[in-house]
């Protein structure tokens, strides 16, 4: 854990602000009998009897009538700087952002018992561009996953979001979007309180609509409706209204907004008195941080974590970064093996000099299989980037075993070659391009 402290001047300013802008504090809460825990405020110079107190200087962007526990200082009324646990969601949906990581993090959260949880989302599905086809073309490059493939895991993403919501229901939670393009947008909006970094976007959820298919209008309508319905379900976790959900998922829907004070009424047309967000039938609605903030979709724009905390009303906070560490360590471990495995598979593809190379190839595949079993993320990365599955590995290993046996038999001069099977004409063997 590391403690962050803003400049003393800022704290002083905040305290002054707090006194003037604070809601009435119930009698008896003015002077807590107990001092703040020492480890929570190691750098605080205030005497124990006068802990750093909420309420905070600002309630900027604070929205009304949101479901879930409010993360704002004015609502939490802590008598010390909060312990803030950051849960990262970074990289590829379904690969880096995988349930296996969050099972570990959930366990850790329950041990650390933070005051506030921040989901930090930075996932652009490997896209360097917003345009869908360019994204698909880019996906052909090494290690890029086709955005449609990523989007097809949407029911898994839904289940993970629901699990995180349920398991963390007792904590005030806020989503901090550093970048969200493609299917990760469902996470950007699955929590009611959401902030964005200045250059963040929420865009490209129409990838889900592209999952449909079929040969006639009715089957297309069915598939379209089913996929978009599932995606909208995740957005509803964040309490987002139907007009907004529709426009985010469906290219054929428009979106504008009427804004009255802090409340926004989303409209499925272009007649909104304030903002027209999406006026085309070509793409779904997309938000820059400015539009998101202006329309109240985002509760605010924060440059970094400290800024986010400040906007929530915490000039001071204690960062619990073990979630970041778990995320980094778990993903770094399999990614390291993944990088190594690409080299293994290059070796596998090398031309063979003689039959001894068959044994080497088999060893490589066995090593691959062991990693597939050990890490679902490793396995998924291979499957989603190159179409290699655990079953295929098993079959290739069995084929190699038979070929090795056949060579050995040939060598021993025994009869019955390996190529005299039952005439089923199986798939190309694992001999690779070398023969």
């Amino acid at each position: 854990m590391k403690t962050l402290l803003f400049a003393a001047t800022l704290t002083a300013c905040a305290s002054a602000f707090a006194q003037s802008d604070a809601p009435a504090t119930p009698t008896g809460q003015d002077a807590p009998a107990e001092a703040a825990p020492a480890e929570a405020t190691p750098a605080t110079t205030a005497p124990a009897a006068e802990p750093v107190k909420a309420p905070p200087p600002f309630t900027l962007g604070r929205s009304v009538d949101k479901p879930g526990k409010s993360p704002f200082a004015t609502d939490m009324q802590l008598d010390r700087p909060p312990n803030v646990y950051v849960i990262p969601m970074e990289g590829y949906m379904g690969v880096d952002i995988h349930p296996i990581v969050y099972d570990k993090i959930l366990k850790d959260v329950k041990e650390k018992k933070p005051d506030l949880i921040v989901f930090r989302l930075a996932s652009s599905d490997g896209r360097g561009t917003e345009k869908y086809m360019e994204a698909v073309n880019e996906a052909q490059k090494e290690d890029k996953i086709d955005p449609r493939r990523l989007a097809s895991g949407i029911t898994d993403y839904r289940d993970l979001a629901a699990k995180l919501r349920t398991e963390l229901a007792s904590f005030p939670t806020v989503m901090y979007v550093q970048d969200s393009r493609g299917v990760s947008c469902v996470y950007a909006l699955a929590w009611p309180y959401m902030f964005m970094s200045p250059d963040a976007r929420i865009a490209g959820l129409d990838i889900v609509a592209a999952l449909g298919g079929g040969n006639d209008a009715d089957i297309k309508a069915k598939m379209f409706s089913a996929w978009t319905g599932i995606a909208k379900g995740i957005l509803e976790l964040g309490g987002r209204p139907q007009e907004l959900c529709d426009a985010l998922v469906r290219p054929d829907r428009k979106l504008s907004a009427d804004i009255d004070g802090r409340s926004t009424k989303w409209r499925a047309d272009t007649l909104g008195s304030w903002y027209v967000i999406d006026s085309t039938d070509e793409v779904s609605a997309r938000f820059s941080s400015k539009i998101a903030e202006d329309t109240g979709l985002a509760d605010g724009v924060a440059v970094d974590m400290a800024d986010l905390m400040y906007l929530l009303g915490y000039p001071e906070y204690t960062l619990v970064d073990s979630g970041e560490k778990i995320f980094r360590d778990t993903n770094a471990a399999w990614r390291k093996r993944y990088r190594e495995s690409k080299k293994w598979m290059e070796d596998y593809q090398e031309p063979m000099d003689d039959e001894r190379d068959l044994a080497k190839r088999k060893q490589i595949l066995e090593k691959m299989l062991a990693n597939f079993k050990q890490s679902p993320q490793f396995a998924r990365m291979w499957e989603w980037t190159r179409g290699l599955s655990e079953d295929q590995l098993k079959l290739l290993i069995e084929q190699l075993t038979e070929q090795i046996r056949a060579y050995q038999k040939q060598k021993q001069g025994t009869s019955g070659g390996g190529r005299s099977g039952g005439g089923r004409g199986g798939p190309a063997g694992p001999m690779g391009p070398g023969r």
Partner: protein
Amino acid sequence: MRPLAALTLVAAIAASVPALEQGAFAQSGAKQQQVKLQKGTWWGAVGDRVEITFKDSLSTKTLTGTVTKIDADKGVVTVDAEVDGKQVTRPLFASSIVSMKTVGGATPAGSAKPAAQPAGKSGSAAPAAPAAKPTGKVDAQGYQLDANGFRIAPQKGVFRLPWKGGVGQTARAEEIEALAKEADKWGPGQIIVIEIDSPGGLVTEIFEIVDVIAKTRERHRVVAWIREAISAAAVTSMQCDEIYFRSMGALGAAMMIRGRDSVYGEPLDAFRTELGAIIEKNGRPRMVFEAMVLAKPVLTYTKDPVTGKPTFHDKVTGLPGEVILSDEKDNLTFNASNALDSGFSKGTADTDEELAKLLGLKEWYEVSDYGVKMATNFQKLYEECEKDLQLQQQRLNIDRAGGAEEQIAVQIQIMEKILAWHKRCKPCIEANLGPNAVEQIQKELKELRKRLGEMRQAQGG
């Protein structure tokens, strides 16, 4: 004259169902209906002889008579009774009824007045309430039994069934039927919660499912709790008494398809006609189902500005506040918010406790874990079988080093493995290989064994 079994049913249900917080009539589709009174509820049907205490202007009156009509929409119970020596038909608002009890059996505990014996009813009828008094008897599993031989649950609860995966594959009629039979052990009036999480599946299975649910509803309250109910799973949900959503739930998109094509003509007509009628019979508008099947049908809803009561429309009316759920290019899929707002669902719950409240239970309590164990074990077995089946089929293609004889021997091994899977998980094998596949495998196996025998004989000779 109603049979004794039906009378027992009324009495047992009356004893076991707590007051609900929903509308006066929670179940208008079934024979047995629930009436919410000023305090508590009454369960029964037309033809029941009842004793009713009700508010009439400033006074409270009691009458005994026979229920002739239960109007679910208006919340009115009509009773034929003898008042001052005259036979009268008296409609009563459920909200004016202080208490109402079936007088077919023993008087409820605490009541000083002996119950009148209804005409034509056996004196051995089950008590109206409470039925769940232990008799001291226990069944083979150690459960306490009541006077009717039903198991006694420590408290009112639910029977949960995780219904996950493809319809006809891991989400089937069999599990619903089996759980209903399990619930029967605790007597009628149990709450069966089907947790639906399915992308749809076989149309052939859906007719069996709606049939099983219809039969189950005759004796229990069947609730659908939606995570994902697409296509055939949407139809399954609409056959239940009540539908609740999870926040992320989605329900709809029910067009019949084969591969990448829609199915039209006679099969689709039969699907729309038969299932449309069933859904309508359940009190859900046929137009809702129609909008889920084809793209063209439109579905909108408006809400009465005074009562807030929603009404569905099959065209855009232009009425103020109209919400378009499905347009001419679209297929209907509900989410939690519009399902609730339009009255299609009865509530949204993300946790067991939230659902318990909506069901009118004090807390979430699972009477038996039978449904959960049965379903999860089967789903696990099915997945294992499907995965291995795919692998085994591909293994058939691998050339064996030992030549033709070994090739045949391995093929025999693989086919025997598939047959063993068929014994353990017949639905999976049939779904993946077809209903007649096993016969073909057996035939081929016989042939391969013969060939192998001949080869070995030739080598030996």
